[in-house]
């Protein structure tokens, strides 16, 4: 940055005596501003992605020499039962996590009033998003606890239960997803509350005069205006679903019998746990996860590009 020539008050007549630097400062400046950020980002984010791709063709325990084995890791993935389970669980996460969007909209509509203290209520409703997923995971594992958990107490009142959510291979993933939906719904709620603020009151009035109300109004007048909020909610929810790791690690550690694993957790387990340091195999799992995410990333970038063309 210091290379940028000092001008300030010395704005002499442009032309003859200008140095090369000065003449090109408009072209040079952006690169000087970009350099630290871009170098850092390339070093810690972009190169590692390429390295992971490369590594997925090797067998490596993290210590000795990596041994090139071509597509062997991927071939092994095809027959890996645990990988298949993780993939299915990722799909469950993807689909069910999207429930946060309508749930968030519902709460936002519920809270979008002007009564005393509503601002405080809105922020308190947002609470779950601000605290760490580690704490959320702990809290929910107590909530589900088969011996003293609140869930079973409630079930007992209505004559049901007891169930051991986190110990049951068929229920466990749903149990964790519900824990994850809690903060995610709060996030979507905030997005929609802000979106509702920006809804055009004149349109609402006009629609009301035309006799629209309730669900019809919501569907035909309000939701179309909430499109930007829905888009952001969709992006963060998809990313959140595919990144789910903390809750699984805290609540079940992938169990019971590996039934709550997802790709992100399975990769970690393969590469960095007592079950062995299979870096290459882990990298192959990460590549699969990355490629899934890439479909969504490409879509997001494409929509951003469409938006950008409209702007300046």
């Amino acid at each position: 940055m210091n290379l940028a020539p000092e001008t300030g008050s010395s704005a002499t007549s442009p032309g003859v005596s200008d140095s090369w630097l000065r003449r090109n400062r408009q072209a040079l400046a952006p690169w000087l501003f970009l350099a630290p950020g871009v170098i850092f980002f390339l070093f810690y984010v972009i190169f590692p992605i390429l390295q992971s791709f490369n590594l997925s063709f090797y067998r490596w325990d993290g210590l000795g020499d990596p041994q090139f084995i071509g597509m062997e890791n991927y071939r092994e993935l095809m027959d890996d039962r645990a990988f298949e389970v993780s993939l299915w669980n990722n799909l469950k996460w993807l689909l069910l996590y999207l429930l946060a969007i309508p749930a968030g909209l519902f709460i936002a509509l519920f809270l979008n009033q002007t009564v005393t203290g509503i601002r405080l209520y809105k922020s308190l409703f947002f609470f779950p998003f601000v605290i760490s997923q580690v704490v959320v995971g702990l809290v929910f594992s107590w909530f589900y606890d088969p011996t003293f958990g609140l869930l079973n107490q409630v079930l007992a009142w209505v004559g049901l239960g007891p169930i051991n959510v986190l110990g049951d291979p068929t229920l466990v993933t749903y149990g964790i997803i519900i824990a994850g939906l809690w903060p995610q719904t709060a996030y979507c709620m905030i997005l929609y509350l802000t979106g509702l603020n920006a809804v055009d009151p004149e349109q609402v009035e006009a629609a009301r005069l035309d006799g629209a109300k309730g669900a019809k109004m919501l569907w035909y007048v309000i939701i179309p205006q909430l499109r930007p909020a829905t888009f952001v909610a969709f992006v963060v929810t998809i990313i959140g679903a595919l990144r789910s790791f903390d809750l699984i690690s805290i609540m079940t550690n992938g169990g019971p019998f590996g039934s709550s694993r997802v790709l992100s957790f399975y990769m970690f387990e393969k590469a960095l746990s007592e079950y062995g340091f299979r870096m290459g195999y882990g990298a192959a799992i990460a590549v699969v996860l990355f490629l899934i995410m890439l479909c969504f990333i490409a879509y997001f970038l494409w929509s951003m590009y469409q938006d950008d063309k409209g702007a300046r």
Partner: protein
Amino acid sequence: MFPKPIQNSSRAWQTTYQALVPAALIMWLLPLIAVAIFSIKPEADFTTGNYWGVPSSFEGISNYGRVFFGSDMPRYLLNSVLITVPTVIGAVALSCMTGFALGVYKFRGNLLLFFMFVAGNFVPFQILMVPVRDLTLDMGLYNTKTGLVLFHIAFQTGFCTLFMRNFIRALPYELIEAARVEGVAEWRIFWFVVLPLMKPAIAALSVLIFTFIWNDYFWAVVLTQGAESQPVTAGITSFNAQYRAAYHLMSAGSIVAALPPVAMFFLMQRHFIAGLTLGAVK
């Protein structure tokens, strides 16, 4: 306004609504309320099975006292601060510059670089895990706060650049052009014209990144181990192993770990929400 303002509806529905909101809030926060109550209960309540009843005595002071004076918790908290604060400063500083460059200048590859930051920010952590861990090991920074901070800065720069660039693009471009006509150097335009206008964005990003980094668990586990460098999110899990059935202490510990971002949110609420909802309103 939608839905219809409550003031325009019947008296009965107004009263119902006034009662419904707090009730719903209690349901919504039930898990947290339970933990808060756990944290002030005496140990005896858990051995006698009084999990959900009224605490038989108030032990908040001794429970929290044990967390602060009888465990590694203060150490973890300090680590979290020492990791989070430099990360916030670093990521915000870098992204002010990248955001300025991408938002103000027209040059070949502008959009491409911008998309690199955006895409990198959406990437699953696992694809970075093995190489970043090796990199950190090679630099001798494994199990240090510095190692964690450097990575966090780099990664968060992706998100922050997206934010800053969009913010700068919404500023009146005439200001910059006017300064150029005056012959002001580019870095002076950045420093004296654009940066002061970016204060709201800087505030929003700072709170947001603070919360993200404070709550990070994955990288803490991958890049550090042990109490001398781990942040509180990782600390709470070793705390969990140590006090497995000591629910009162675990609860107090969880509350302590959750408090700083919560406090941050309440103090800087408007900025926080402005940051989160970037792009959600057009």
